[in-house]
């Protein structure tokens, strides 16, 4: 699908947008540079473009903010598009007295057509053009900072939207909706005869709700933890900087902090191994092993489990003659089947056989256990000593009168306490299933198991078990397809982004290490986030955006505000040479200082359009589409109206 902007018009709006109509030609120019000094309505134009594309819900205050004078009662904005070569106009009319905004769409249609109320974009576009996504298309430069902010997930969401991966979810949801409707149908048709069904449904809903609550809680705790991690890094950074005034003390501080981290890592590794060992009780002590071996011997002695199989009795019941030679009539058949459940089923036999085998091959490893326990103690002591040394160094610096250190140290302790509380709660939430009947109310794994068990009980009761399994197969396949497709697209876009970054920032090895919700730069992972300048950040954003759009099935226009203002001239030239070929339509709002190194790269491009908008001494907004005016324009010098071919 291809979307092009043909132009836009403003009527009676604030910020110099009293009467301005911008036409990008037929067909619309591939590159349009709009030179608008501050105060001529550039920000408002960007805001209006986004608003009509996303059918923004205007508040009274927002509408009033667009009112140019008290005497003005109404105003409007119209965006003219070509959607797959069909003209389509989106308009918003403001009533400044009532503080309201009304949208309308004008389009060519086989039946009817003309002007209709509302924003009537094609389904595919409307689903995609959410407020977040529109920020990538109408790009205000602010996103350049966010695009690599770890807390945001616009990068991942953009990939999902642009490549329509959400459609796979809606397909799964359709299958699941059908399953639910079948269950409801079964419930309503059988409710009178089986009141227990309703109870089973309530039980399943309760477990589902509880699981949802726990997942939300985990998400919330993860978010809080991320924030506290950031705070901790900030406070530690501040302390290091202040302590670093004394170089000897700084070196000691860094060394002790490194010791502390190594000790924590050692404790974690030893604890992990210890837990693995404890999962096999025979390794704990020789006495435990001896008792388990005695149990294995008794199982062998009783010929368990071979002689006690339920299946044996099921098969026996179907025979004409018993193993003792007596005939098996209907009475014996029923009696054997009735008693069969007293014996072990196949799955239980498998467990006992696995136990026997494990006991036979088990060896006591209590030496290893003791060694690990000692290692944990030693590592913990090292950690404590290092932490105390760090504390002493910081206190020394604070005692010398540095109040900022004392404050940062107190903040650090507060954050450490908060983090410890969060970690402790997360451990219960996300760790292994704890003991106790109500574990499913506190632990996610237990809640998932409880939900699955109750779901299955309901499926069995409503006789929709087969459909549930069929639906589960399809949704599982679709889930894996989505994950795989997303991983492939993400990796492809990451690789393309990095190829472009080599061109854009050849002097420094900045690359996108991963796209994990947001863009994570290799320098972020190294802990040196402050090392990326605003210009480099913008270059990363361009490299990512162009990579994102170049392989997508949608061809969308790219509108950008001040594309080069924070870039040095060399990077500007690289951006100017890289970006144009990657978008099939670009509209760039620039100021005069962006001409050098950026706008001048477009002067020789055939079909590029250059528009200059300025306010004259009477306060009226004028517009020229003359390249000579564009090149010569300076904010403080008004162009000669006649030679500039001015439209006002």
């Amino acid at each position, binding site marked *: *699908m291809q979307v092009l902007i043909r132009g836009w018009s403003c009527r009676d709006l604030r910020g110099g947008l009293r009467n301005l109509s911008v036409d990008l030609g037929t067909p619309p120019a591939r590159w349009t540079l709009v030179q608008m000094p501050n105060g001529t309505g550039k920000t408002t134009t960007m805001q209006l473009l986004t608003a009509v594309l996303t059918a923004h819900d205007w508040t009274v205050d927002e509408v009033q903010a667009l009112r140019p004078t008290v005497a003005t009662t109404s105003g409007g904005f119209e965006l003219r598009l070509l*959607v*797959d070569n*069909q003209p389509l106009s989106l308009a918003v009319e403001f009533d400044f007295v009532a503080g309201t905004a009304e949208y309308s769409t004008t*389009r*060519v*249609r*086989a*039946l009817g057509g003309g002007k209709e109320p*509302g924003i*009537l974009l*094609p*389904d*595919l576009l*409307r689903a995609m053009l959410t407020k977040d996504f529109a920020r990538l298309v109408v790009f205000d430069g602010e996103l350049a900072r966010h695009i690599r902010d770890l807390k945001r997930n616009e990068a991942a969401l953009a990939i999902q939207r642009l*490549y*329509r*991966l959400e*459609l*796979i979810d*809606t*397909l799964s949801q*359709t*299958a699941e909706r*059908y399953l639910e409707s079948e269950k409801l149908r079964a419930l309503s048709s059988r409710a009178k005869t089986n009141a227990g069904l309703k109870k089973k449904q309530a039980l399943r809903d309760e477990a589902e709700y509880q699981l949802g609550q726990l997942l939300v809680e985990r998400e919330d705790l993860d978010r809080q933890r991320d924030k506290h991690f950031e705070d901790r890094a900030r406070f530690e950074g501040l302390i290091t900087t202040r302590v670093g005034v004394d170089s000897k003390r700084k070196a000691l501080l860094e060394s002790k902090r490194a010791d502390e981290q190594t000790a924590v890592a050692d404790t974690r590794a030893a604890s992990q191994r210890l837990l693995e060992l404890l999962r096999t009780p025979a390794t704990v002590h020789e006495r435990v092993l001896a008792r388990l071996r005695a149990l294995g011997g008794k199982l062998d002695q009783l010929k368990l489990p071979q002689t006690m199989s339920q299946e044996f009795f099921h098969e026996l019941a179907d025979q004409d003659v018993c193993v003792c030679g007596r005939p098996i009539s209907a009475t014996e058949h029923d009696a054997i089947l009735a008693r069969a459940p007293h014996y072990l089923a196949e*799955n239980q036999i498998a467990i006992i056989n696995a136990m026997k085998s494990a006991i036979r091959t088990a060896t006591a490893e209590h030496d290893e256990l003791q060694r690990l326990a000692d290692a944990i103690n030693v590592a913990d002591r090292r950690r404590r000593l290092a932490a105390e040394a760090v504390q002493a160094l910081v206190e020394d610096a604070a005692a010398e009168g540095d109040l900022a250190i004392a404050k940062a140290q107190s903040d650090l302790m507060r954050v450490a306490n908060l983090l410890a509380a969060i970690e402790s709660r997360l451990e219960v939430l996300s760790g292994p299933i704890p003991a106790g009947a109500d574990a499913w109310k506190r632990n996610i794994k237990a809640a998932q198991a409880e939900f*699955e*068990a109750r779901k*299955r009980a309901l499926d069995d009761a409503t006789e929709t*078990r*087969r*459909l549930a*399994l*069929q*639906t589960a*197969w*399809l949704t599982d*396949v*679709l889930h*894996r*397809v*989505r994950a*795989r*497709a997303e991983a*492939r*697209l993400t990796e*492809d876009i990451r690789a393309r982004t990095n190829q472009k970054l080599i061109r854009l920032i050849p002097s420094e090895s900045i690359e996108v290490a991963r796209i994990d919700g947001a863009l994570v730069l290799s320098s972020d992972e190294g802990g040196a986030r402050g090392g990326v300048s605003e210009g480099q950040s913008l270059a990363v954003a361009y490299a990512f955006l162009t990579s994102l759009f170049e392989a997508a*099935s*949608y061809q969308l226009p790219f509108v950008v505000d001040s594309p080069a203002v924070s870039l040095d001239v060399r990077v500007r030239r690289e951006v100017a040479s890289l970006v144009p070929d990657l978008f099939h339509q670009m509209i760039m709002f620039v100021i005069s200082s962006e001409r050098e190194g950026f706008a001048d790269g477009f002067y020789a491009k055939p079909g590029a359009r250059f528009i200059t908008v300025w306010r004259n001494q009477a306060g009226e907004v004028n517009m020229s589409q003359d390249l000579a005016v564009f090149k010569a324009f300076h904010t403080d010098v008004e162009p000669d109206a006649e030679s500039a071919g001015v439209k006002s």
Partner: protein
Amino acid sequence: MTEPRGLLNSRLHGESLTPNLDLTMPLDPAVRDALDDVLRDEPQSDELKSRVRQLVSNWFDHNSTDDDVIRVVRQVRVNIEQDD
């Protein structure tokens, strides 16, 4: 249930499709490859796998109905005795 989904959505939003506006798009190669990879080792018939591929492709084109989804689901072979 039997109405094409795109058309149904359009009606829900007070809009009808115009015959001269082709808004369909091919299945992205990343999705197609992922489908092939995932289905390859699934213990289902080739016919069902082919139907799943077709269903996903049509779904992306807004050219399949809820009934198409149900038909495919009902054809999945499962072991009713299997444990969760």
